[in-house]
């Protein structure tokens, strides 16, 4: 493939976005959606071509590179608009455009609400813009271009979360997402600055050059394990915690579910949120130099996975469950890259994109069918009414809980095993001897069990048992304030083929995605470790060792995890299918009240941030900075000086300029006396 074609990959969706924006209201849902889907499909085609080119070269072709033009050139900052497609990029491109195209297609069916008819063009324009930005993020050959994409996807996320902007809460959710991401960006930028200056004369922002420089001269950033490189890695990771919704910046993602469900599927599950993992993978050579940072990443990932899972267990909003599930799965991916299993982490990115997109789209189909009802307590028994949707959802469910043979099984298992087997020295958060990998494995395994529970709970509550839905919705989850009459608030029914066709494709991918990278114990020529081999050159500069555990333990541990997962499924089945009647009481008996409420209220993290950060900052800004510092101190000083001058003037006028001529003469005489004295004595 001609590298020049790389430029077309992002160009198509950008063109689509512009075209749709130009057509605006003249473009109906189908026209706008058609254009958008077409554009992304073209990108997808090119992406697969790219992948094929690279794959078929068997490592002979390290990467494709194409420079469009010089973007910024000042001093040491020499940045081009240039695209780099190495194996990592190529896979990611395919995921983004492939899944993206499916979701675009799905959206054409999904966005059929007559109330949105005037604004679906906006939806598709944003969506195309998003794909463009995402492609910039992954294809940019340098930090700044990546950052353009990085922030660009944030922008689209902001716009799409707030797509139904008339609802103030939705608009706020968009804002929250953007600002929380900005906190991460702040960290990212500082890390970038630090890296740039550390390189001194060799400063570069290009990934390829940076890799070369650091491999050749690791001492520039303080050498392996150096403080500087650790700081840089941690700060860059700080950026990732924002974009990829990790502790402590995960709070925006659940709120982001305010956006239309395809958006949740595309942006907040399959693609954008994984960019943190992508970034770390891209910079694996740098992160590998900072074991402490790797330890932090793995730990944060594991803890996020666990923490989000605890919340997901009690949520009743189907999208919220999926949102926390996403956070949790992202944690897994960080755990993977944190322990140095970059391929495994990235593999999970890919499989997760399949099954989580599927889950969201399936949920979207359900919501669509239920007329914007998202509360699972009002669902139930939908499998019979929505066979295709239900069926595909079940596939996704199997994948996400890690049922053997599904894509999720392979990717999750690889992460868990490599975590267990990781050399403690390469994630030396608590020193090289501390058995952090084992600890993380335990967290990971527990999380896997919890995942199985809450995902089963979701599936059971939604598709099994009796239908609990009343008539339409009345809980305010609807997105329109103005009347959005549901004359047709009948029973749920299967969605149109436009929507279920993508589900079916994704279901296939969820099932068979594991073929991409079969574990070593299933030997199939060309498939075993395929992704691993393909990505090897990318991660070659970040050698990691996984001989921290006896390899004979691999299968027994897998079995253990599997057992835990199945147990969880059973519990869920018991609670939600066997005894569906007392959904609430059962849990009250099972778990202490505080834990239940904590989980239900997301451990009050939002409230905590509100009380400790947002409120104080606003309060201080308003009551201290604005009211006191600005108005009283600074401006007070200015006005006070002016007032004082006027007062002096007045006092002078009253006391000195009395109008009595002899006062004046007296002052004159006194002045004379002083001067005379000065000259008589001082002369």
């Amino acid at each position, binding site marked *: 493939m001609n590298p020049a074609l790389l430029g077309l990959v992002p160009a198509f969706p950008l063109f689509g976005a512009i075209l749709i924006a130009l057509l605006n209201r003249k473009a109906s849902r189908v026209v706008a959606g058609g254009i958008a889907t077409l554009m992304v499909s073209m990108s997808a085609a090119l992406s697969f071509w790219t992948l094929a080119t690279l794959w078929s070269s068997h490592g002979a072709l390290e990467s494709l590179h194409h420079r469009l033009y010089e973007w910024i050139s000042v001093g040491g900052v020499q940045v081009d608009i240039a695209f780099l497609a190495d194996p990592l990029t190529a896979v990611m491109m395919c995921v983004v455009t492939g899944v993206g195209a499916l979701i675009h297609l799905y959206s054409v069916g999904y966005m059929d609400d007559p109330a949105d008819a005037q604004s679906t063009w906006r939806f598709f324009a944003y969506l195309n813009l998003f794909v463009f930005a995402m492609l910039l993020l992954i294809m940019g050959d340098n930090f700044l271009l990546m950052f353009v994409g990085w922030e660009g996807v944030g922008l689209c996320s902001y716009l799409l979360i707030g797509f139904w902007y008339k609802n103030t809460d939705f608009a706020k959710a968009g804002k929250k997402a953007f600002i929380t991401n900005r906190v991460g960006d702040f960290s990212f930028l500082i890390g970038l600055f630090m890296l740039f200056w550390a390189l001194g004369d060799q400063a570069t922002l290009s990934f390829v050059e940076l890799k070369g420089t650091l491999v050749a001269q690791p001492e520039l950033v303080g050498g392996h394990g150096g403080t500087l490189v650790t700081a840089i890695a941690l700060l860059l990771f700080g950026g990732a915690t924002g974009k990829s919704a990790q502790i402590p910046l995960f709070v925006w993602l659940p709120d982001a579910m305010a956006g239309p469900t395809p958006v949740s599927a595309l942006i907040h599950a399959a693609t954008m949120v994984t960019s943190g993992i992508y970034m770390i993978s891209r910079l694996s050579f740098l992160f590998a130099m900072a074991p402490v940072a790797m330890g932090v990443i793995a730990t944060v990932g594991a803890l996020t996975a666990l923490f989000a899972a605890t919340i997901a267990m009690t949520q009743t909003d189907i999208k919220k469950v999926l949102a926390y599930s996403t956070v949790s799965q992202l944690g897994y991916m960080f755990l993977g890259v944190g322990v140095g299993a970059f391929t495994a982490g990235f593999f999970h990115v890919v499989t997760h994109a399949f099954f989580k997109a599927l889950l969201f789209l399936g949920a979207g189909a359900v919501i669509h069918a239920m007329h914007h009802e998202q509360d699972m307590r009002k669902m139930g028994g939908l499998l019979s009414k929505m066979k295709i949707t239900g069926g595909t959802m079940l596939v996704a469910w199997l994948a996400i809980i890690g049922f053997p043979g599904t894509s999720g099984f392979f990717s999750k298992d690889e992460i868990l095993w490599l975590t267990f087997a990781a050399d403690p020295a390469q994630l030396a958060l608590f020193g090289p001897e501390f058995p952090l990998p084992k600890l993380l494995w335990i967290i990971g395994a527990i999380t896997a069990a919890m995942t199985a529970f809450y995902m089963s709970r979701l599936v059971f509550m939604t598709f099994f048992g009796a239908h609990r839905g009343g008539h339409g919705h009345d809980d305010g989850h609807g997105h329109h304030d103005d009347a959005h009459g549901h004359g047709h608030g009948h029973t749920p029914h299967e969605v149109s083929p436009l929507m279920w066709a993508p589900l079916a494709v994704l279901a296939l991918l969820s099932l068979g995605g594991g073929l991409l990278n079969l574990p070593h114990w299933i030997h199939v020529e060309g498939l075993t470790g395929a992704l691993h081999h393909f990505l090897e050159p990318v991660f070659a500069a970040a050698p990691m060792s996984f001989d921290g555990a006896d390899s004979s333990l691999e299968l027994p541990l897998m079995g253990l995890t599997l057992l835990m997962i199945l147990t969880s499924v059973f519990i869920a089945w018991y609670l939600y299918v066997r005894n569906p009647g007392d959904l609430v009481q059962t849990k009250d008996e099972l778990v202490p009240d505080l834990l239940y409420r904590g989980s239900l209220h997301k451990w009050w993290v939002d409230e905590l941030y509100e009380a400790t950060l947002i409120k104080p900052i606003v309060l201080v800004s308003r009551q201290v900075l604005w009211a006191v510092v600005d108005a009283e101190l600074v401006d007070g000083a200015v006005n006070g000086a002016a007032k004082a001058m006027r007062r002096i003037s007045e006092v002078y006028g*009253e006391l000195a*300029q009395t*109008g009595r001529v002899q006062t004046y*003469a007296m002052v004159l005489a006194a002045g004379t006396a002083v001067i005379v004295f000065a000259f008589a004595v001082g002369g």
Partner: protein
Amino acid sequence: MDQVGLYPVLFTSAVLFTIGAVGVLTRRNALIVLMSIELMLNAVNLAFVGFARHLGQVDGHVFAVFVMAVAAAEAAVGLALVLLLFRHKATVDLENFTLLKG
């Protein structure tokens, strides 16, 4: 007079000058203020004459004559102004003339 040296003359002049100045500063009657100014000018005249004698020049004496002429003109204008004041307020007490101030 021959026996009188420079310094007694100057001393007298200074005393007269000071008396005049104090008069200007303290007396409330415009006329007396006017007279005090004349006193000051004459004190200077005394000094001129004293210096002239001391230096053996005539210049100082001539200056005194000039000063007298000027003083006369000044007194004329001054008296006219006092009259003007009196026409407005029927008094020449300076305390009453504080329209302009501040």
